[in-house]
């Protein structure tokens, strides 16, 4: 049971959160301008690194806020907690 640092509520059990996948995958400004391949890349392709990975979480059973943090996928240690508005930056 990971202890996930919600930027607002502090560390809480993993069970209170929803996972939002890779961070910084912004919704395209103009999807209609994208080729099918570019759109498919947005829809279906995500990184899956061993090591540091910026990812999104939502404190679903708590303050309901989305935020981004970096997790080392091999050790489950978190760094760089930031609140939601930075997600798409």
């Amino acid at each position: 049971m990971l202890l996930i640092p919600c930027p607002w509520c502090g560390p809480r059990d993993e069970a209170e959160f929803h996972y939002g996948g890779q961070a910084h995958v912004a919704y395209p400004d103009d999807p209609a301008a994208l080729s099918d391949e570019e759109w498919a890349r947005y829809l279906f392709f995500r990184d899956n690194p061993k090591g540091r990975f910026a990812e999104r979480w939502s404190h679903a059973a708590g303050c309901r806020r989305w935020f981004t943090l970096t997790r080392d996928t091999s050790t489950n240690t978190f760094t760089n907690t930031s609140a939601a508005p930075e997600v798409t930056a």
Partner: protein
Amino acid sequence: MTSRRRDGHPAHAGEALRFRYDGRDYEGRAGDTLAAALLANGVRVVTRSAGLDRPRGVYAAWTEEPNALVQIEKPFPEPMLQATTVELYDGLVATGLRGRGRLADRPDPARYDACHAHCDVLVVGAGPAGLAAASAAAASGARVILADDRPAAGGSLPDTGETVDGVPGARWAAGVLAELAERPEARVLTCTSVFGHYDDNYLVAVERRGEAAASRERIWRIRARRVVLATGAHERPIAFAGNDLPGVMLAGAARAYANRYGVLAGRRAVVFTANDSAYEAARDLAAAGIEIAAVIDARTTVPARLEPGAFPGHVFAGPVLPGHVVTGVGAGPDGSVASVTVSAFSGSGLSGSGLSGEREIEADLLLVSGGWNPVVHLFSQSGGALRFDDGLGAFLPGVSVQPVEAVGAARGVFTLAGCLEDGAAAGARAAEAAGFPAPQRPVPTVIPATVAAGRTAATPPVTPPATPSATPSATLSATPPATPPMALWLVPADDYGTHFVDLQREVTVADVMRATGSGLRSVEHVKRYTTAGTAHDQGKLSGVLTSAIVAHATGVEIGDLGTTTFRAPYVPVSFAALAGRDRGALHDPVRVTSLHSWHVAHGALFENVGQWKRPWYYPRPGEDMDTAVLRECAAVRDGAGAMDASTLGKIDVQGPDAGEFLDRLYTNMMSTLKVGAVRYGVMCRADGMVFDDGTVMRLADDRFLATTTTGNAAAVLDWMEEWLQTEWPSLRVSLTSVTEHWATVALAGPRSREVLAGLAPGLAVDAASFPFMTWRDAEVAGLAARVCRISFSGELAYEINVTAWDGLALWEAVMGTGAVTPYGTETMHVLRAEKGYPIIGQDTDGTVTPADLGMDWIVSKKKADFVGRRSFSRPDTSRPDRKHLVGLLPDDPGLRLPEGAQIVAVSPLPEPPVRALGHVTSSYRSAALGRTFALALVAGGRDRIGERLYVPLGPPGDDPVPVTVTGPVLYDPEGARRDG
């Protein structure tokens, strides 16, 4: 039956308990384990092995026991428990277990529960190191939890009889517990096995609280800032021929039975060792009255300090034979040890060529000590690395990745003084790291006592201070050990067929060599190939031994080879304990609406929709489901019916940008909706697949109320929040769930207008004043209500919303008119299906677009973008042969197709493979149509309308059932009934 109990041992002061084992009655003492009581009664053969039918006895004295598995029969059946950990109680009935156990044939009446706990320092293990750690940490004022799997603290102290601070170890341990009990921030959990160590120092334990407690077992979920693992060490076996027979036992186990329980495991023992600790065991056993027939030491040098002559008053009956090994075991009539064959041993290698001078020694007990394996399970689970220590011949904790530290024997410190010092230092360190500097305190001392409890006066002191004991300590001792241990894993032989590695799984050295011989190199692969280490004990004794033999056989260093992965649970945990309170009625939350009591009182049967209980139908006396549903359907089509629709999700969307926000999420336009109006909408995922549908009311310029399907209420709110917060934070919108603030009564049928008019005299209900897809605030039955004119049945219909507090009053008023039939979800489903309205999640499955549903009309052509739009022009979503939602009419109008049935184009079925065109998603009997019908997703379905297709239903060989494809709307396709 002669007793094997030591005269005058304090353990025998306990109450006499009667128990029955394998059909015979015995007597034990309170405080005995079942194993101790069986040994005390001279029971040597406890059961037989599952595969080879070999006799099995007690091998160990605690959770590492591989052999003595029992089935508890009374008071409540429980399979596969270790006799060495079952606490004896009066009336216990058990049998030896061979192979699989037997589950109870009735529900367990006991309560099981769980508790969360938080602490600054968790200490696992209440042996000398753990007690010293807990005591030091608690002195700082830190919150400390000390958990130990035994009923009493002390760890190995009662087994060895050692003294601390001048008193017997057990008494010292009790004193530490008493001290901890005085500290308000300390908690001691006895009979509690910490069985899992997870991320962020989250540890899970099971507490066995007993039959009299409020819960029989309790799961503790512990979050600790720091963890001190004082989990001790397991003595390890040596593989030799016949090492599985009853009477072969770990030396430390025999010592524990003699000292802790006052029980003699045999009369005449041969001790087989490769380290010094077995000499201490032999000395204690000799003092207890077991004749030591010989000490067989594989090392060529006998530790002078521990020679028999060093023990005043005790001389072993037989010789100490250095440079010897046990090469065989002779069995008596009952299959247990009657003699031991020993040989001189020189050289190494795996063949028996280095053996000579064989001799046979009469004995009924063969005590084995191959050294000690620190219990590194939790440390390893925590992510910590292990390293192999050549001096100790054991795997030790290496670098940790969490705030966790192993102390004492768990990290290879094998002296009592060393453990006390190590524990105290670690406890203080952990408390300080958690923010609680610990005061300086004296470390408990190991003072020689002249008399130790449970031992004779002549017994010498065990471990003088500052003098290393049998095995070297890893770091604390500056003095070199008397005689280094030898890492003896197996006795070479020409035939390894009875050299058992895993006694429970009956895996022999020969089996392991067969695995390595066929090319396996990884110990993980060997484990899976041979099943070594996969039994109830998860290889506590066999795991490292397996690694060693694989290393031997493949010519690599064991430290390089490593161990198999240590996984939770450390000890077997019952499913009942894991389920805890989440069983029966509390298994999952049952969500009910404010009208629930009425539904129950009126005989509704309920359908589970997610966690909700929704009325399914309301059978009248004598009605089956079909009859009741046909009656309810007819009532709605011909008169008026009412359904509890409170479970629909409701989201209050407020803010100046609310319209824009909804435009981006729904496929159709919401910002153009007028205040007072309602619009149906569909939401898609970015991949273009339908995610949810519902209605949107505009309450004010800057306020909407969106409804969702029952099952998706939370998911839709999450979805909206995700887009709002992560993609469009500049939109001035806020979202609030009001699902349960409102109770909703759906009133449907041609007579619903007059019913509503009667209940709401102030509301103009005529079609012109209150048109379709509008809403009005009104007083209904004297209650403040919001009434929407929407329909999910094609009939004239309303949804009346009041606060949940008023829901029951509204419903009773509606029913009080006498003109309204209550209907349930099944009728709702039939009515909507007759109209071709899809249910998201039933007629769709995450691969269906609005176009697939024939709902192009819901997709805005004007909006520049909305979530999912781009995907509609992907090649895959614009294929002409996608599955479309269509209607199906079976040729046989009385046949209701099963939902999920596959659809094919030809009959009779050709040889496989047969292309499936799709499947039935909804299927009902229709009162309005006077026949059965179905909805289905069918490849290119809209181009097949009028075609005959087939549904294979019966057994192979039966012809598929013929059906005709229709459009999805089968009832009132013109929509004439909407206005009543």
